[in-house]
């Protein structure tokens, strides 16, 4: 296997360049992750070394967009952890959306879109889509474009289908996509009313009045400082009684979650914001 190894000093130089040139601060990304991700980009784009990377990113804005896409890790699959999606389908969605108007669901980092499309498909299956406003944001413009168009990697389909069957044993996921020239395409009517928002890295302009946040396995790429900042943002944008769902191996030590949230489902990491 071909590998390129980036030193810690080089990694910090790259972080400094990104801040100097684009005013994007990656200091609070998890260092090991950031280093590995840049190593991958250097290899994939034949940039030779840290200097090559810095030179390219300083001179090409379009390469900075590619970098932002690469730093946003794709969702691994549709309906990751089917047991969570069963809880959404059988409890959270029917109980909260049935009689709601404009129930807002926010995906703070939508990346490759599987969480968004999984949610939209369940809502469609339950015929609740008209009561919901989906909001998908990302720091990557390229990811937003790709997700809007519904493009996905059909290599993931075997897992996608198997997961879907664990939730809707009688139905078939293929009702919701087509394959054209080895490219998977979701039925984009699933997201036609979705609001797509480009975020800058500090998320200073985030949506308000949110009833449910789905943010699984993205904060794991942040260090504790950024995780803590995100917790404040999510708490502020959720309405009292709203739900927050994070990855099943995520927990934030600094988070005074007893005060702010009721941990309503430990197996699936579902929190409910307490009434003030």
């Amino acid at each position, binding site marked *: 296997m071909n*590998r390129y190894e980036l030193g810690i000093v080089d990694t910090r130089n790259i972080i400094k360049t990104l801040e100097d040139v684009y005013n994007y601060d990656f200091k609070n990304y*998890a*260092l*090991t992750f950031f280093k590995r991700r840049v190593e991958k980009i250097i290899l994939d784009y034949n940039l030779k070394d840290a200097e090559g990377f810095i030179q390219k990113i300083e001179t090409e804005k379009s390469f900075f967009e590619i970098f932002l896409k690469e730093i946003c890790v794709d969702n691994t699959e549709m309906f990751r*952890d089917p047991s969570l999606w069963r809880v959404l389908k059988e409890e959270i969605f029917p109980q909260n959306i049935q009689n709601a108007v404009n129930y807002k669901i926010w995906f703070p980092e939508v990346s490759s879109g599987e969480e968004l499309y999984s949610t939209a498909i369940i809502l469609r299956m339950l015929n609740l889509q008209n009561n919901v406003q989906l909001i998908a944001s990302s720091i990557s413009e390229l990811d937003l474009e790709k997700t809007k168009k519904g493009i996905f990697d059909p290599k993931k389909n075997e897992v996608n289908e198997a997961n879907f069957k664990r939730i809707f044993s009688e139905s078939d996921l293929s009702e919701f996509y087509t394959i054209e020239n080895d490219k998977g395409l979701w039925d984009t009517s699933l997201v036609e009313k979705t609001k797509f928002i480009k975020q800058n890295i500090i998320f200073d302009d985030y949506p308000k009045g949110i009833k449910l946040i789905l943010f699984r396995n993205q904060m*794991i790429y942040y260090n504790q400082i950024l995780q803590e900042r995100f917790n404040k943002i999510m708490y502020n944008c959720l309405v009292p009684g709203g739900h927050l769902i994070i*990855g099943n*191996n*995520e927990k934030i030590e600094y988070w005074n979650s007893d005060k702010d949230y009721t941990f309503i489902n430990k197996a699936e990491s579902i929190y409910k914001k307490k009434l003030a």
Partner: protein
Amino acid sequence: MYKAVVIGGSAGSFQVITKILSSLPKNFPLPVLLCLHRLKHVRSGFVEALSIKSKIPILEPYDKETIKSGKGYLAPSNYHMYVELNKRIALSTEEPVNHSRPSIDLTFETAALAYRDKLIGIILSGANRDGAYGLKKLKQAGGLAIVQDPNECQVKTMTEASLKQTTVDHIFTTEQIISFLTNIK
């Protein structure tokens, strides 16, 4: 002088790892990082199975959990497990490496960066090449490289791939691994 042990295993390693864990004393002085290939869609049960005979607590860590001595940290299903420089666990859902998530290479490589020459790495029985590159990085960082004796392995591919890439410090049977670890003060 050592600060951590990292163990990688795949097909045929479960009994070996169970035996090792059941032999470590309750007050084992180091943390044990375990990256074992496992079924992706079976989230629970594995940590419980490993815990039955283990005297040290085995847990599937949360992201950014601080690594502590005398505990076993098992890479959760469908996540890579990294060690951060500040000796915390970091989880990742990045693409599989060597068709594996968790990948042994990634756990070894990041542990080597964090613990340098204070790390013991052990590769056990397994059916693919994951871990070979990680053990090489561990050795390059000054760590102690141990491979289970391929003659004893149910499946030799993983240990043989590691031996091909790295001049290891020891080729040990399960009993020798146990005796080595239990003599660490």
